[in-house]
């Protein structure tokens, strides 16, 4: 993923797409991406989804970093979950078929933490989304104006280079 595009979306997201729903969705997507090993097609596709939809990107990126930091602990849950799924006799035909398909191995589906992470992410997506939405309400009430009026954002606005690059979006 183009790092410049991510930085651009990050700054834009500080002031745009800040409804509680968008913040909640960003945190949920970030949580899911954070659980994945990043060098897999699954994680890359989720990043594309994050960038392509109108979710709050700064919150999503911050959540990715936060979840990635605690991955060694979360792996203790996702690894056995994924192992149970990958060694399940009922699912064996599906995995074998995927394993024999082109492209599919790039998704890293046969790595225990990928299916484990997807299942854990799916199970926790609703509580994470609602918690994120509540955080969004809190953020909009307490922080949004402070962020908008912060020297950092004002400085960015004043920079002609960034203004040109962001096309006045900040």
């Amino acid at each position: 993923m183009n790092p410049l595009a991510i930085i651009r979306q990050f700054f834009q997201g500080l002031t745009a797409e800040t409804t509680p729903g968008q913040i909640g969705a960003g945190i949920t997507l970030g949580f899911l991406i954070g659980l994945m090993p990043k060098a897999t097609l699954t994680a890359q596709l989720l990043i594309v989804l994050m960038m392509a939809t109108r979710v709050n990107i700064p919150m999503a990126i911050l959540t990715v970093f936060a979840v990635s930091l605690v991955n060694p602990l979360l792996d203790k849950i996702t690894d056995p979950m994924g192992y149970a799924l990958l060694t399940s006799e009922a699912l064996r035909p599906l995995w074998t078929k995927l394993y024999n398909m082109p492209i599919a191995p790039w998704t890293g589906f046969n790595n225990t933490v990928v299916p484990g992470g997807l299942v854990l992410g799916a199970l926790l997506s609703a509580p994470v989304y609602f918690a994120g939405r509540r955080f969004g309400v809190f953020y909009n009430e307490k922080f949004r104006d402070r962020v908008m009026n912060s020297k950092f954002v004002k400085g960015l606005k004043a920079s002609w280079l960034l203004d040109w690059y962001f096309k006045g979006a900040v």
Partner: protein
Amino acid sequence: MRWSYLLPRLTLLLLLWAFFFFAFDPLLKWGMIKGIEKGTKAKAEIAVLKTSFLHPSLKIAGLAIGDSKEEYRNLLEFSELSFSAEGAPLLEKKLVVDSASLKGLRFGTPRKTSGKLPLVKEEPSELVDALVAESKGFALERAADVKTDVAADYKVDPAELESVKLAKQLEESYQKDYSDISSRVNAKKYEAGLDAMKARYEKAKGEKNFARQAKDYADIAKEVKKLTADFKKDKDEAEAALAKAKDAFKAVEEARKKDMAAVMAKMKLPSLDTQSIARMLAGPLIAEKTAQAMKWMGLARKYMPANTKGVLKNEARRGREVHFPKENAYPTLLVRRLELTGELGEDPLEYSGTVEGLTTQPQVYGRPTTAVIKGAKGARRLDFKTSVDATGEEIKTASELSYAGMPVAQLQLGSPSSFMVEITNGTGAFEASLKTAGEELSGKAAFRLAGASFKPKADNIKAAPLRSAVESSFAGLSSAVIGAEIAGTIKSPKLAINTDLANALSKAFSGAMGAEVKKAQEAAQKKVDEALKPYRAKLDNMAAAKQAELEGKLKDAEAKVTGAGEKLLKDLTPGKMKLPKFKL
């Protein structure tokens, strides 16, 4: 949808293309150079590296790798390596190359610039160091004083003898091996298993359903047979393991011989033992070549695939990767056939050959990697074949090399501090074979020299009769055979060296002052034997006692397990089953 995001993707794709077009090849080249330098601890150069993505291919030209030991010499160089990858396996994250070509492979070529890397130290080889020290320490200078009964003054300290140290080590390791082996034959485990089956038999006896009872009886009988067979297998394995542990004692005898040579050297007396003389003459040269070969082998093993055959392999950075059966199984990396051409030696001998089945996952490929190389020029003939089989539980290799008609301009044997032979203008024929299975290795090599002139440098021999005997023993010589046998493990190889030059030298020693030296040697041997005797006796007694103990234990357990098993099987015979009564 965020179209402002989606549209710039095209720009990104363009940037990606530009990256691969302009920057990927230099970055890959840099990464490869750094990787090779890390592995070989010397400078590496690549003149050209070109990749193509539409028709996936790689071309490397002008690769040269410096020798970490010789600053201005290359370990190897080649003019071109090229291959094209198959497209379909790439979609499955697999790199499969049907045919590759490696041209102009040469070893030991001179280089214009230094191949040394800063802050890199070559690790010393124990094998080379030991043989060089033995060669340097080979004493000749006091041969004239032998009549002064030098052996009588010399005291042997048991703590310094290698054989005593080894006997102590073997005692410890044997005791550990014994406790491991002994715990493996756990009769209680089998007795408990038989008790459980007895309980199942009692339960099945009371079963009223005839068909179910018959099935239960058959199941129990099958399990009893399996249990007794397992016990027998464990017992046989234990006996074999104990015998193997005792085999290690043979090394004490070898160590004793070395102690003898060391004691003779300390007494500044020449050894008459041809093995010691052969080690002094050809040891440093052979050890250096062996250490070099072991270094290559170590490097190859480092990049050799692991021999884990299980379904689950922990090869991912996070989590574990579970593998499934493949309809068309491709290894992650496979080069089906590599055509190879190159040159050998200063007067280049051109050779060509093929390497087949180069892969990172031999278990998936299911075939060993093989290489065949042949070359000829005038009277010179080169034949090399090797096979690396990593498809099983342990990696097995078998290699054979034959190089005949090799010109030998100059060759020095021995050590300048003791005795040296300079061999010039000869022709050599080298034959070697080497096999490895896991960590174990065994092999032999022979180097036959013909039409050469031998010039001894015996200035260090102060005793005039001995010096002239040594010089005359080499006078009419024009051919020689140097042989070596290698055994032991890859980490700790054991070399046995023999040469007919040693026989000539030994005869010269014996002829000139053999009787006196032999007398001194016998006295020294007596001292070494006396020092070693209590340790050797302790080791032998301990082994005999432990063997008797294990035999008793196994006999007792066998009686219990087999007896109980046979009784249970007797009870389970159809004759003991109550057949249902049918009223007709």
